């Protein structure tokens, strides 16, 4: 069952993350931890013409959280801020292309939570 979790796409992004690093200065920066497992993700974003010009993530954690952040960087590259705001959990989960069990959902979605919190401002909190 969980074997499916570690398909090549996850392991590939985990081993070769896209946009790993930090940006300084950045227009939006936010970081958060998954309090249940201690995974940490920070995302920096530079914006030009209301579009994501450059983005980078850093942090540490499991293959799922790190690969998902890497995949999210790919998904949002060059997108307008409005488009990024419109990305749903389901959108990201679909891109991951592996079955995420409930216990791992927070790992898989941490990067999206961080990115949105950065763009909306810290007050924003996703519902679950």
């Amino acid at each position: 069952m969980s074997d499916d979790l570690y398909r090549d796409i996850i392991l590939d992004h985990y081993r070769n993350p896209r946009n790993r690093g930090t940006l300084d200065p950045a227009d939006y920066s936010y970081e958060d931890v998954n309090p249940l497992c201690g995974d940490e993700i920070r995302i920096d974003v530079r914006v030009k013409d209301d579009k994501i010009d450059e983005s980078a993530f850093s942090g540490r954690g499991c293959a799922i959280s790190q690969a998902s952040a890497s995949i999210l960087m790919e998904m949002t590259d060059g997108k307008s801020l409005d488009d990024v705001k419109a990305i749903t959990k389901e959108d990201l989960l679909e891109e991951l292309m592996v079955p995420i069990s409930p216990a791992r959902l927070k790992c898989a979605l941490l990067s999206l939570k961080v990115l949105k919190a950065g763009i909306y401002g810290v007050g924003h909190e996703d519902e679950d």
Partner: protein
Amino acid sequence: MTATTQPSTIDGLAIRKDFPIFQQAPTEGRLPLVFLDSAASSQRPAVVIDAVSDFYARTNANIHRGVYQLSEQATLRYEEARHIAAQFINAANPRECIFVRNTTEAINLVASSWGRTNLNPGDRILLSVMEHHSNIVPWQMIAEERGATIDYIPLTGDQRLDLEAFDALLKNEPKLVAVTHVSNATGTINPIAEIVRKAHAAGALVLVDAAQSVPHMPVDVQALDVDFMAFSGHKMLGPMGSGILYGKREILEAMPPYMGGGSMIRKVTLEKTTFADLPARFEAGTPAVADQIGLGAAMQYLSGMGMENVRQHEIELLDYALEQLPGVPGLTAFGPEDVNERAGVISFTLGDIHAHDVSSILDSENIAVRAGHHCAQPLMHDLGVTATTRASFYVYNTKDDVDRLIAGLHKANKIFGLS
């Protein structure tokens, strides 16, 4: 006197089949059990008992932090129970339902967390004379610590809140009004919607002790617009150890944690700790997972009957009992006469026979009632008695139970030579 013209669809005798305790053969020489003490703690149907056993036998594991299947299932079932609870009281968001052991813990949580941050010397809080000790003592403790003052809404002659006095006491600008929805000692139903409206207009928050209302009638926290509401699972067919503190999200979010420990943190360092979001922030340590799942099962069972029907069933029993009881010589019953202002609770005295003696004699007939101050000593003082005998109804009671009660009371009179 009946509240609605629809008769209840509930058949107490048929419902007893769902409850293992009513299937037990009575002890040698004793009559079948008549259980009239549900206001203290209800009995539990097999679906609830089984929900608990089943959790332990199938999906038992600690929740939240586990990645493996059992822990995942346990977490899902625990959170499902929270969703059921939110629906049951119509909370806007399941996060507004904090799992607690009982009403008492819920009120202590608010008194301690909200009270310690919001009460300052000279501040006032407003309770009532009919409160259960659980809605008095926590406030006395925090008021003493914070230098705040407590006012009490007095009662009318038939044990209802004196609403004129309430209006006057609101002029003291209390920060919080904490009142019971239904008195456990007299059955009085308080007009919570009106109390909330007036309290909010005066700038006070409202905490409702719903220990005796949520089990017995439809309660909608949004319609009532209460800020906090507390109730216990064990009084509504659920396991002991289960219960809910409801609080409006923005109010709960502004409150500091009550207990510290596992699960309620975001990050702990030796110097400083940051706290988790709702509801985890208020659920430190390993919760009573199976009990709260059992509470979910109890709520589903009650919803299956319909809370309107539960209420109607109790009104019918109350009507019948209030009609019959005056026939017992020496009996004085307390509380409002109108069944629309009264839950299925009857507190009474019998001549000068002490409540404990009445209760012991009823016990010899295997009729379970409560005797004493019902954790409401200030109310007893107000009634001018030290104790009353109390009979309380629930879904599994019948008119026959009322008849057995009345026969038992006649017997008590006879033993004490009163009739």
